[in-house]
Protein backbone atom coordinates (compact mmCIF):
# COMPACT_ATOMS: atom_id res chain seq x y z
CA UNK A 1 0.00 0.00 0.00
CA UNK A 2 3.05 2.26 -0.24
CA UNK A 3 3.28 4.24 -3.45
CA UNK A 4 5.48 6.78 -5.14
CA UNK A 5 4.56 8.57 -8.30
CA UNK A 6 5.54 11.35 -10.63
CA UNK A 7 2.51 12.91 -12.26
CA UNK A 8 1.73 15.87 -14.47
CA UNK A 9 -1.85 16.39 -13.36
CA UNK A 10 -2.97 18.29 -10.22
CA UNK A 11 -2.49 16.34 -6.98
CA UNK A 12 -5.54 15.65 -4.82
CA UNK A 13 -4.14 15.43 -1.31
CA UNK A 14 -7.18 13.74 0.21
CA UNK A 15 -6.77 10.87 -2.21
CA UNK A 16 -3.08 10.57 -1.39
CA UNK A 17 -3.72 10.67 2.35
CA UNK A 18 -6.51 8.10 2.14
CA UNK A 19 -4.53 5.61 0.09
CA UNK A 20 -2.02 5.06 2.90
CA UNK A 21 -4.58 4.25 5.59
CA UNK A 22 -4.69 0.66 6.84
CA UNK A 23 -7.39 -0.43 9.30
CA UNK A 24 -5.12 -0.60 12.34
CA UNK A 25 -3.89 2.94 12.00
CA UNK A 26 -4.89 5.99 13.94
CA UNK A 27 -3.32 8.96 12.23
CA UNK A 28 -2.00 10.16 8.92
CA UNK A 29 0.36 13.10 8.66
CA UNK A 30 0.51 14.82 5.29
CA UNK A 31 2.99 17.35 4.00
CA UNK A 32 1.59 19.48 1.21
CA UNK A 33 4.27 21.55 -0.52
CA UNK A 34 3.21 24.17 -3.03
CA UNK A 35 4.37 26.94 -5.23
CA UNK A 36 5.26 30.09 -3.33
CA UNK A 37 4.29 33.41 -4.81
CA UNK A 38 7.31 35.20 -3.40
CA UNK A 39 10.84 33.89 -2.96
CA UNK A 40 13.22 36.36 -1.35
CA UNK A 41 10.87 39.17 -2.35
CA UNK A 42 10.83 38.29 -6.05
CA UNK A 43 7.45 37.42 -7.54
CA UNK A 44 7.22 34.03 -9.19
CA UNK A 45 4.75 33.80 -12.08
CA UNK A 46 4.83 30.05 -12.29
CA UNK A 47 7.16 27.08 -11.82
CA UNK A 48 8.35 24.20 -13.87
CA UNK A 49 9.52 20.89 -12.39
CA UNK A 50 11.67 18.42 -14.29
CA UNK A 51 12.80 14.98 -13.11
CA UNK A 52 15.26 12.32 -14.07
CA UNK A 53 12.26 10.06 -13.87
CA UNK A 54 13.61 6.51 -13.54
CA UNK A 55 16.23 7.59 -10.99
CA UNK A 56 13.71 9.77 -9.12
CA UNK A 57 11.40 6.77 -8.73
CA UNK A 58 14.31 4.63 -7.52
CA UNK A 59 15.26 7.25 -4.95
CA UNK A 60 11.65 7.64 -3.80
CA UNK A 61 11.42 3.89 -3.32
CA UNK A 62 14.65 3.94 -1.28
CA UNK A 63 13.30 6.73 0.93
CA UNK A 64 10.14 4.78 1.68
CA UNK A 65 12.11 1.62 2.45
CA UNK A 66 14.44 3.52 4.77
CA UNK A 67 11.55 5.31 6.51
CA UNK A 68 9.80 2.00 7.15
CA UNK A 69 12.98 0.61 8.70
CA UNK A 70 13.59 3.65 10.91
CA UNK A 71 10.07 4.62 12.04
CA UNK A 72 7.08 2.64 13.30
CA UNK A 73 4.86 3.50 10.40
CA UNK A 74 2.44 1.50 8.29
CA UNK A 75 2.32 3.08 4.86
CA UNK A 76 3.85 5.91 2.93
CA UNK A 77 2.61 7.68 -0.18
CA UNK A 78 4.69 10.19 -2.10
CA UNK A 79 3.43 12.03 -5.18
CA UNK A 80 5.52 14.69 -6.89
CA UNK A 81 4.13 16.72 -9.72
CA UNK A 82 6.15 17.60 -12.82
CA UNK A 83 5.74 20.15 -15.59
CA UNK A 84 4.28 23.62 -15.27
CA UNK A 85 2.66 24.57 -11.96
CA UNK A 86 0.75 27.73 -11.17
CA UNK A 87 1.12 29.65 -7.91
CA UNK A 88 -0.50 27.81 -5.02
CA UNK A 89 -0.65 24.46 -6.77
CA UNK A 90 0.67 21.46 -4.90
CA UNK A 91 4.08 20.27 -6.07
CA UNK A 92 4.55 17.42 -3.62
CA UNK A 93 2.46 15.44 -1.17
CA UNK A 94 3.90 13.01 1.35
CA UNK A 95 1.45 11.07 3.51
CA UNK A 96 2.49 8.76 6.32
CA UNK A 97 0.04 6.55 8.21
CA UNK A 98 1.01 5.12 11.57
CA UNK A 99 -0.63 3.56 14.59
CA UNK A 100 0.69 6.46 16.66
CA UNK A 101 0.92 9.96 15.34
CA UNK A 102 4.38 10.72 16.77
CA UNK A 103 6.06 8.32 14.35
CA UNK A 104 3.96 9.66 11.48
CA UNK A 105 5.10 13.23 12.18
CA UNK A 106 8.75 12.21 12.51
CA UNK A 107 8.76 10.07 9.37
CA UNK A 108 6.94 12.65 7.25
CA UNK A 109 9.37 15.37 8.30
CA UNK A 110 12.34 13.10 7.56
CA UNK A 111 10.92 12.10 4.17
CA UNK A 112 10.43 15.62 2.84
CA UNK A 113 13.90 16.65 4.04
CA UNK A 114 15.49 13.66 2.32
CA UNK A 115 13.38 14.01 -0.81
CA UNK A 116 14.65 17.56 -1.27
CA UNK A 117 18.20 16.30 -0.83
CA UNK A 118 18.24 13.09 -2.86
CA UNK A 119 15.43 12.78 -5.42
CA UNK A 120 16.60 14.08 -8.80
CA UNK A 121 13.95 16.70 -9.51
CA UNK A 122 14.69 20.31 -10.40
CA UNK A 123 12.57 23.41 -10.10
CA UNK A 124 12.64 26.36 -12.48
CA UNK A 125 11.18 29.62 -11.22
CA UNK A 126 9.74 31.85 -13.90
CA UNK A 127 9.63 35.60 -13.21
CA UNK A 128 8.35 38.51 -15.28
CA UNK A 129 11.94 39.24 -16.38
CA UNK A 130 13.51 35.81 -16.67
CA UNK A 131 13.74 32.34 -15.26
CA UNK A 132 16.15 30.46 -12.99
CA UNK A 133 16.78 26.81 -12.29
CA UNK A 134 16.85 26.65 -8.51
CA UNK A 135 19.93 24.96 -7.11
CA UNK A 136 19.32 22.71 -4.12
CA UNK A 137 20.85 23.92 -0.88
CA UNK A 138 21.48 20.57 0.69
CA UNK A 139 24.57 18.43 0.51
CA UNK A 140 24.37 15.71 -2.10
CA UNK A 141 23.80 12.20 -0.79
CA UNK A 142 26.75 10.07 0.17
CA UNK A 143 27.50 7.44 -2.42
CA UNK A 144 27.13 3.86 -1.26
CA UNK A 145 30.09 1.84 -2.43
CA UNK A 146 31.82 4.85 -4.06
Amino acid at each position, binding site marked *: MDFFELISEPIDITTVARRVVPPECGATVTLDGYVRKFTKGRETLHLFYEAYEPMALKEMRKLIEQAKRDFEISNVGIVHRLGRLEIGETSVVISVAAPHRKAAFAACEWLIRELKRTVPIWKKEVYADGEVWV*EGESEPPAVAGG
Partner: protein
Amino acid sequence: MSVRVLFFGATADVAGKRETSIDLGGNSNVGAALESVLRDQPSLQSYKLLFSVNQEYAELDTSISDGDELAIFTPVSGG
Protein backbone atom coordinates in the same frame (compact mmCIF):
# COMPACT_ATOMS: atom_id res chain seq x y z
CA MET B 1 33.72 2.29 -25.14
CA SER B 2 30.63 4.47 -25.42
CA VAL B 3 28.76 6.16 -22.58
CA ARG B 4 25.40 7.86 -22.78
CA VAL B 5 25.39 11.23 -20.97
CA LEU B 6 22.19 12.87 -19.74
CA PHE B 7 21.65 16.49 -18.69
CA PHE B 8 18.76 17.92 -16.66
CA GLY B 9 17.54 21.34 -15.64
CA ALA B 10 20.41 23.84 -15.57
CA THR B 11 22.92 21.43 -17.13
CA ALA B 12 20.56 20.71 -20.05
CA ASP B 13 20.11 24.45 -20.63
CA VAL B 14 23.86 25.08 -20.52
CA ALA B 15 24.70 22.11 -22.74
CA GLY B 16 21.93 23.07 -25.12
CA LYS B 17 20.87 19.42 -25.23
CA ARG B 18 19.43 16.78 -22.97
CA GLU B 19 21.63 13.91 -24.05
CA THR B 20 24.93 13.14 -25.72
CA SER B 21 27.27 10.23 -26.20
CA ILE B 22 30.98 10.13 -25.46
CA ASP B 23 33.74 7.68 -26.28
CA LEU B 24 36.23 6.76 -23.56
CA GLY B 25 39.13 4.33 -23.19
CA GLY B 26 38.62 1.18 -21.14
CA ASN B 27 38.62 1.21 -17.31
CA SER B 28 37.24 4.69 -17.18
CA ASN B 29 35.48 6.54 -14.41
CA VAL B 30 33.13 9.50 -13.86
CA GLY B 31 36.04 11.94 -13.59
CA ALA B 32 37.38 10.98 -17.01
CA ALA B 33 33.91 11.18 -18.53
CA LEU B 34 33.41 14.62 -16.99
CA GLU B 35 36.69 15.86 -18.48
CA SER B 36 35.49 14.73 -21.87
CA VAL B 37 32.14 16.45 -21.43
CA LEU B 38 33.74 19.68 -20.20
CA ARG B 39 35.90 19.90 -23.32
CA ASP B 40 32.66 20.27 -25.31
CA GLN B 41 30.78 22.21 -22.63
CA PRO B 42 33.27 24.34 -20.67
CA SER B 43 30.45 26.52 -19.23
CA LEU B 44 29.38 23.59 -17.08
CA GLN B 45 32.53 24.14 -15.03
CA SER B 46 30.96 27.06 -13.18
CA TYR B 47 28.23 24.84 -11.71
CA LYS B 48 28.27 22.58 -8.70
CA LEU B 49 27.73 19.21 -10.34
CA LEU B 50 26.39 15.87 -9.14
CA PHE B 51 26.62 12.59 -11.00
CA SER B 52 24.81 9.33 -11.32
CA VAL B 53 25.78 6.15 -13.12
CA ASN B 54 22.92 3.91 -14.16
CA GLN B 55 20.55 5.96 -11.99
CA GLU B 56 22.57 5.64 -8.78
CA TYR B 57 24.49 8.56 -7.26
CA ALA B 58 28.16 8.38 -8.17
CA GLU B 59 31.42 10.18 -7.41
CA LEU B 60 34.35 11.16 -9.61
CA ASP B 61 36.10 7.85 -8.95
CA THR B 62 33.04 5.70 -9.67
CA SER B 63 33.97 3.41 -12.56
CA ILE B 64 32.07 3.45 -15.83
CA SER B 65 31.63 0.64 -18.32
CA ASP B 66 30.57 0.48 -21.93
CA GLY B 67 26.87 1.21 -22.33
CA ASP B 68 26.51 2.90 -18.93
CA GLU B 69 24.18 5.85 -18.45
CA LEU B 70 25.91 8.85 -16.85
CA ALA B 71 23.83 11.81 -15.68
CA ILE B 72 25.31 15.22 -14.85
CA PHE B 73 23.16 17.65 -12.90
CA THR B 74 23.11 20.42 -10.31
CA PRO B 75 21.98 19.80 -6.70
CA VAL B 76 18.36 18.73 -6.77
CA SER B 77 15.59 21.21 -5.90
CA GLY B 78 12.37 19.24 -5.89
CA GLY B 79 9.76 19.34 -3.16
